[in-house]
């Protein structure tokens, strides 16, 4: 179950397409292929402060450790603050029994988290890069995802959350760039969540940690420092399994369950974009479902703008990514269909 819109980032880009001020022809490929537009927090979530995405993750983790004495954070290099600074200060604040380094073994990390959760602790495990989650694939797929089902609900690992940086970063090549959500979207029993900015990251991560199901939370690492906005300092959560529409009218935010279908029924045309390779990417599932639900409303073939079916190459990144120009081309195709 993919809980947040994988297309949000792409939609954001699309929205930007229509704003001529972002429609620049200068080509600066060395940094990133997008411009982050800060979001605005809901006023009901209280006081805010300027945070980037890694800081908002730290804030969510801090709140979790403070409110839940059973919560522990562990993974490779998390004790000194993490290679992306997401756990800075937490060990000093909560002690090394609650924030600790693990040996370098992804299957061990996830399994250890499963055990903690099965024994009643809130386990927040970190996999250093999503690219390195595959050694733990068996533990996630055959164990975490099925723990409740196979035991008839005698045991569960609902208190497990796995956090992991994901996505292109400009120069990450094969093993520091991957988007791997589709592998996990095919696993009944797991929730997969991906935020698009600091406000969402904190609210969704808190929801994952508190959700009574094992969750994988993928953090787009390109946004760790690049995405900065006013984030509520207090405790708040953003519900899982709900999509969000970003429309030209900037402050209008709507959340509904069947949002895709409503949106497609209205527009009749769809572009789905993700960084992960095209074939069997999550867009295939979305396209199939939309086609099934909105057949009579569709006015053009669903467009999928994705990474190519190749490994992620270092110097070829600008040509691999489904950037705004490729998305723009897909939109043009739809408009003129």
């Amino acid at each position, binding site marked *: *179950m993919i809980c947040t819109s994988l297309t949000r980032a792409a939609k954001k880009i699309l929205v930007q397409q229509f704003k001529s001020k972002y429609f620049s022809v200068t080509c600066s490929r060395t940094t990133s292929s997008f411009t982050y537009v800060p979001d605005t927090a809901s006023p009901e979530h209280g006081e805010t402060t300027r945070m980037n995405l890694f800081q908002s993750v730290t804030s969510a983790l801090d709140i979790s450790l403070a409110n839940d004495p*059973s919560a*522990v954070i562990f993974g490779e290099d998390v004790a000194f603050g993490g290679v992306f600074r997401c756990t800075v200060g937490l060990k000093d604040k909560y002690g090394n*029994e*609650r924030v*600790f380094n*693990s*040996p370098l*073994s992804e*299957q*061990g990390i996830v*399994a*250890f*988290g*499963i*055990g*903690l*959760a*099965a*024994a*009643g*602790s809130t*386990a927040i495990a970190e996999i250093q890069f999503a690219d390195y989650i595959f*050694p733990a694939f*068996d*533990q996630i797929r*055959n*164990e975490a995802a*099925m*723990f*409740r*089902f*196979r*035991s*008839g*609900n*005698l*045991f*569960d690992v*609902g208190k497990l959350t796995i956090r992991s940086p994901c996505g292109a970063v400009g120069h990450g090549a094969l093993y520091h760039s991957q988007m791997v959500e589709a592998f996990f979207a095919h696993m*009944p*029993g797991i*929730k997969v969540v991906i935020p698009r900015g600091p406000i969402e990251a904190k609210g969704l991560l808190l929801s994952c940690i508190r959700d*009574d*199901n094992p969750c994988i939370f993928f953090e787009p690492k390109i946004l760790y420092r690049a995405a900065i906005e006013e984030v509520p300092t207090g405790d708040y959560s953003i519900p899982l*399994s709900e999509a969000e529409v970003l429309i030209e009218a900037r402050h209008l935010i709507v959340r509904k*369950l069947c949002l895709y279908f409503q949106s497609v029924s209205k527009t009749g045309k769809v572009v789905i974009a993700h960084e992960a390779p095209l074939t069997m990417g999550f867009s295939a599932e979305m396209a199939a479902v939309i086609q099934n639900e909105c057949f009579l409303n569709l006015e053009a073939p669903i467009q999928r703008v994705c990474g190519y079916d190749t490994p992620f190459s270092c110097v070829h990144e600008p040509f691999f990514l489904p950037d705004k120009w490729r998305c723009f081309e897909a939109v043009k195709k739809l408009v003129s269909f």
Partner: protein
Amino acid sequence: MSLIRPLAFLFRTRNLHKRHQSLLYRYIHNSEVSYSSTHKVSSTSFEDKPEFPGSRSQYVHKLEFLHPEILQGIPVYRVMNRNGKIIESDQDPQLTKDTVLKMYKDMTLLNTMDRVLYESQRQGRISFYMTNYGEEGTHIGSASALDPRDLIFGQYREAGVLMWRGFTLDQFMNQCYGNHLDFGKGRQMPVHYGSKKLNFVTISSPLATQMPQAAGAAYAFKVQKKGLCVVCYFGEGAASEGDAHAAFNFAAVLDCPIIFFCRNNGYAISTPTKDQYKGDGIAARGPGYGMITVRVDGNDVFAVHNATKHARDICVSQNRPVLIEAMTYRIGHHSTSDDSSVYRSVDEVSYWDKQDNPITRLRHYMENQGYWDDEMEKEWKVESRKMVMKAFAAAEPRKKPNPEYLFTDVYDKVPPHLQEQLKEMKKHVQQYKEHYPLEQHEKMS
């Protein structure tokens, strides 16, 4: 009484070249260095100590590899001989007569249940089964030494642990039949037992996955200051999985109160241990991870009991993992899908069944003590068989669970897309009801 002896015994050497001996000694103790009288060492050799962060040892100035062949195998701890006679009286656990009787009755009841369920699979009445023949002593010996609140993670050949804790014959049968009384709601293959009440985490098929999970659970126990430990059972074949390595290392590094209990029964399906590992079994790996380790005679229920009891004390008082390797022999086939005569001789199996069997050995002990005789044996055989057959007959006709349970417990709540699929299934089955075994199941809503 010290059952867990210093690790030095590991490295007791036989006809070993003196230089090797001193190298080994240094390797083990890595502080005080002893030299053989014939071996001259340059005066500067230990003036500076290695400062590498990755080890704690001394320099040497001759190239010498550490050859595993020169190490004598870790000895097998034993309390009673094959005739049920206690060898060293100070090692006698001095269990009460009632405890010994329960041990024996649980081992033989498990054996009787195994025979009935094995046969029932042969007749196609249950889909699959795995017996525990020859390994009953490892189950009962260890289970009897634990606190019933200690959490168990098993592999699949540890039904005796559940039996010791009070899992009933009905509950075993219900699981194997996947009927509506099965705690697992009929979702898993037979012998994948679990019990929340008895602190026995539900079995799953993927091997060794439970091992690092058990370490995590033990860490949770430590943080929660429960004063309990976690026990993780696994076979010597499963110990080859990457998860076993992760488990040993995590447990040691993170100071987890866990007993790793290896059932080394000589085979992983058809694979003999010589194709499984080259070292001295599983126990020899323990010190490599910094784990306190012992090897026991798995057919000696008292040896297993003593070792487990002591290991538990270490876990709980020191927050350290302990590795126990119980040497035994898988007398039965791997499972009902296996014919072991294809890869091992009948004579070999018969030797262990007749000459070195945990049940027989305990019976000898009981007879020596005057706790048991032929008459009692005869009566118990009849009675236990009756009990098993009664549970068996009751479980067989019970309805299978409601088909709707296919969709529950995937998540804590049934999410909308699964509610949709459930609705679809019900509608479809209604339409084509003559093609589905609805009469075998509880009624759908």
